């Protein structure tokens, strides 16, 4: 825990305020019956898949290729998440299944 309780509270407060602002902004800007600019609507539609792809790469930034254990567990567990989701279409099964598999791989096999 690198943060003091006060610093952690400040971080959580920032997360809460920013999260609320992302939800409130459309209401603050466009709730008077104005139409949002077309570019805003367009970016609102095409940005989410790009951002999620960005975050996946960000999550995997620690992957290394010097040892098998550096890249094989995230590859196997990541594939498991995608395949489970294509097969069952259930968030719960996909996320829990892949996470448990990953934990088994990093704790038991590629130690």
């Amino acid at each position, binding site marked *: 825990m690198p943060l003091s309780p006060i610093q952690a509270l400040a971080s*959580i407060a920032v997360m809460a305020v920013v999260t609320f602002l992302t939800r409130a902004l459309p209401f603050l800007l466009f709730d008077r019956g104005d139409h949002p600019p077309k570019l805003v609507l367009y970016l609102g539609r095409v940005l989410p*898949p790009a951002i999620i*792809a*960005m975050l*996946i790469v960000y999550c995997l930034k620690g992957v290394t290729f010097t040892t098998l254990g550096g890249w094989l567990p995230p590859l196997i567990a990541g594939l498991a998440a995608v395949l489970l989701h*294509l097969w069952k279409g259930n968030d719960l099964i996909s996320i829990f299944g892949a996470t448990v598999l990953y934990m088994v791989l990093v704790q038991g096999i590629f130690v």
Partner: protein
Amino acid sequence: MNRKTLAAAFPVTVPVLMGYLAIGMAFGLMLQSIGYGAHWALLMSLVIYAGSGQYLGVSLLAAGAPLPHVAFMTLMVNFRHLVYGLSMLEKFRGMGSRKFYMIFSLTDETYALLSSAQAPEGVDEHDFFFTVAMLNHSYWIAGSVAGALLGAALGFDTTGVDFAMTALFLVIAVGQWRAAGSHIPALLGGAATLASLLLAGAEDMLLPALAIIVIALTLLRPRLEGTHEREEETPCP
């Protein structure tokens, strides 16, 4: 809220109950694994209430990230909420003081339920929306506190539990991939971030990546403007 509204809203929220208990528990476990117990899980789920945002929050707390970095990362991961608000402008109109809570609690799941579910005959629509939102929030809080308590009680090795965040984003990506009219935004996002990781390094990768994404998508607008999503599908918080 009265009994009739609750009876109408509860069945609608059951899929979210299952999902939030599971994803919330994974969050509680992750948070517990970096040394923050159940009261921290309760606080975060109460005041932030965002699935992927809180998953990211765990890694920000673990890294002791400076506040501007926390603000920027939270903004990035929650950027999609801007779109949700745009389609709820009409629905929330006239909800008075409850509108503040409706906007606060507009997660992916609540958005998905509110955009499809209808209040049955004899139930006030705004009461129904408000009850759905509150039920979902309570499931999220319950799941995350349960996860933190479980992690503390069982005391097992939680190494690797942070992969839940990667899995969550992959699951969201699968849903978006199926619903998207064009795969260019997703491919562009991945490629731009990979390039940024290689050029700028792991610490400073996000801002250049985001700049490339926004500029490229703006330039590609003539090409992508006509591609519409097939169906709304929002599988995760």
